[in-house]
């Protein structure tokens, strides 16, 4: 692998030469599926043909798909200008995506297993309202890393010449999840066992009821998918999870087979969720999840001690002090009748920077939103809640999720509604600019 040559600024570039192989996959898979479906007929039909014709058909198919892959590669260009990333695709239907760099939420380098073997990587750019198409797949690995660094540097407001020369900003490791901790945490999570139990009990139940092993098999397949997602897939994505700090945000590297390299720029996080499953609490472990507008990254760290998690949250939400939050429970008088037993899990804390709501008795979830990220505030009250003298307060954020403080006393909820609106306004005025390093 040679060092990437810095291309002329503003010039158009192409994707990696191996990309056609990936593009050609789709029609090849479709044809294979068709042949498999038609099975015997296709075989009969093929056997009826003379050998040379069979070879010709095969060659024709390879040629057609190869041409398709080649053309789609040939007509895909990307260019980086001062303010935007331009991706031009399409032979018949042309499509040009202009991605404004100051609106970029995050840039991830992903390396699926096959791509790792081939030494290429995909670059995914998260912008609000973006489609899946807005990714550059594939680039040579060093190119992908260099381009990512360049885009981030430009988005942060560095001059173009500086941006290419700067390279990837250095990082400092904050946290690394050991394989043992990850495995133990998954074993202690009830949902892993629930998935496993469902995978075992479901088919047996279907078998017993329908007395047909085929029905059980059919039921087993989707369940196996769920079991896989709930256990092994979580292990594979969480393997060797590393959180590092760099000037352009927090870096997340993780994955056993598919390596992902994600960046969470500061100031783009809308909500943080701290999840504490029942069996983790004795060990003081938590999982931290994130909501970034326009991004699919969901997890900040799969398992960490509470102190480490709080330190990480303070980096993601600058100025946030989660440990100092003191949660006030719902008023016993009304809440007891509105939601029996489970009302004990509800809690609310409002600090100078944060609005935090807690819920859940067995698996405790704490959702935290900075005042500056609040889009609108709502207070709702149903007839039964009215009788009990309680109300819910919802805080809506831009990442499409809502943090709800449930069952607050009626007067408190009203004060909270107006107070939250005022707090969001004042902290918005003090919020950082969009170019985060400038």
């Amino acid at each position, binding site marked *: 692998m040679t060092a990437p040559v810095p291309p002329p600024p503003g010039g158009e570039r192409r994707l990696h030469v191996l990309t056609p192989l990936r593009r050609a996959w789709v029609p090849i898979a479709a044809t294979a599926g068709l042949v498999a479906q038609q099975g015997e007929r296709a075989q009969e039909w093929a056997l009826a043909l003379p050998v040379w014709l069979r070879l010709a058909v095969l060659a024709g198919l390879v040629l057609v798909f190869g041409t398709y892959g080649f053309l789609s590669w040939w007509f895909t260009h990307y260019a980086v200008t001062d303010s935007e990333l331009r991706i031009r695709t399409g032979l018949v239907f042309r499509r040009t995506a202009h991605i404004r760099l100051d609106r970029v939420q995050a840039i991830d380098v992903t390396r699926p297993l096959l791509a790792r073997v081939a030494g290429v990587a995909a670059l995914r750019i998260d912008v*609000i309202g973006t489609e899946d198409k807005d990714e550059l797949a594939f680039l040579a690995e060093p190119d992908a890393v260099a381009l990512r660094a360049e885009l981030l540097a430009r988005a942060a407001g560095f001059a173009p010449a500086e941006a290419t020369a700067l390279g990837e900003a250095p990082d400092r490791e904050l946290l690394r999840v050991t394989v043992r901790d990850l495995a133990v945490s998954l074993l202690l999570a009830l949902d892993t066992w629930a998935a496993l139990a469902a995978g075992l009990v479901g088919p047996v139940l279907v078998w017993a009821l329908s007395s047909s092993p085929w029905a059980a098999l059919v039921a087993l397949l989707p369940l196996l998918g769920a079991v896989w997602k709930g256990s092994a897939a979580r292990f594979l994505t969480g393997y060797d999870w590393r959180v590092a700090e760099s000037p352009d945000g927090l870096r997340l590297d993780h994955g056993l087979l598919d390596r992902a390299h994600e960046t969470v720029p500061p100031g*783009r996080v*809308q909500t943080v969720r701290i999840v504490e499953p029942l069996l983790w609490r004795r060990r003081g472990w938590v999982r931290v999840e994130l909501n970034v*507008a326009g991004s699919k990254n969901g997890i900040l760290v799969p398992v960490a001690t509470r102190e480490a998690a709080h330190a990480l949250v303070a980096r993601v939400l600058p100025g946030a002090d989660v440990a100092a939050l003191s949660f006030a429970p719902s008023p016993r008088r009304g809440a007891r009748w509105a939601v029996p037993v489970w009302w004990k899990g509800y809690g609310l804390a409002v600090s100078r920077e944060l609005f935090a709501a807690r819920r859940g008795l067995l698996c405790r979830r704490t959702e935290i939103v900075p005042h500056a*990220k*609040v*889009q*609108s*505030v*709502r*207070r*709702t*009250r*149903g*007839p039964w809640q*009215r009788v009990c003298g309680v109300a819910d307060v*919802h805080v*809506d*954020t*831009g990442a*499409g*999720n*809502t943090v709800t403080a449930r069952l607050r006393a009626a007067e408190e909820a009203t004060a909270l*509604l*107006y107070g*939250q*609106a*005022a707090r*969001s*306004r*004042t902290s*918005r*005025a003090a*919020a950082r600019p*969009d170019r985060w390093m400038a």
Partner: protein
Amino acid sequence: METGTTGETDRPAWAGLPGGLLSLRRLLLVVWTAVLTAATALPLGLLAGAEWAALGAIWLPALVWGWVLLGRNWRSWRYAERADDLLISRGVLWHRETVVPYGRMQLVEVTSGPFERRFGLASVQLHTAAAATDAKIPGLAPDEAERLRDRLTELGEARSAGL
């Protein structure tokens, strides 16, 4: 135009909705009740005898009840423009109150359906980056709707903030 204040703003000056929306909804209620009554009474009268057609009257209590409910619901709708945010309050049994800061508005929409136009009504809807924001004021007079739209747009630009 007032400038942004940082502390608690003044007490909201609530405004209700004009009567047009109530008339429209009540008219629709009467029409639907009439249709339902006819659909119940006619087949019964033709098939089972004229006295059975009186069963169509079961819809009358529904009409009275709906009439009262619509009135209560209409009275519960109110909105207030404060210096920095818009307040919308509505609902009798399920009461909801929404606060949308002007700086968070992405889009203001004025819509008017065929029935609404006939009654001289228009709705104003505010969109923020959060899909859950449900800030819609129905049944405004078109002049008021346009005034509100212009004012909200102006204030939204003046107090604009990113995500």
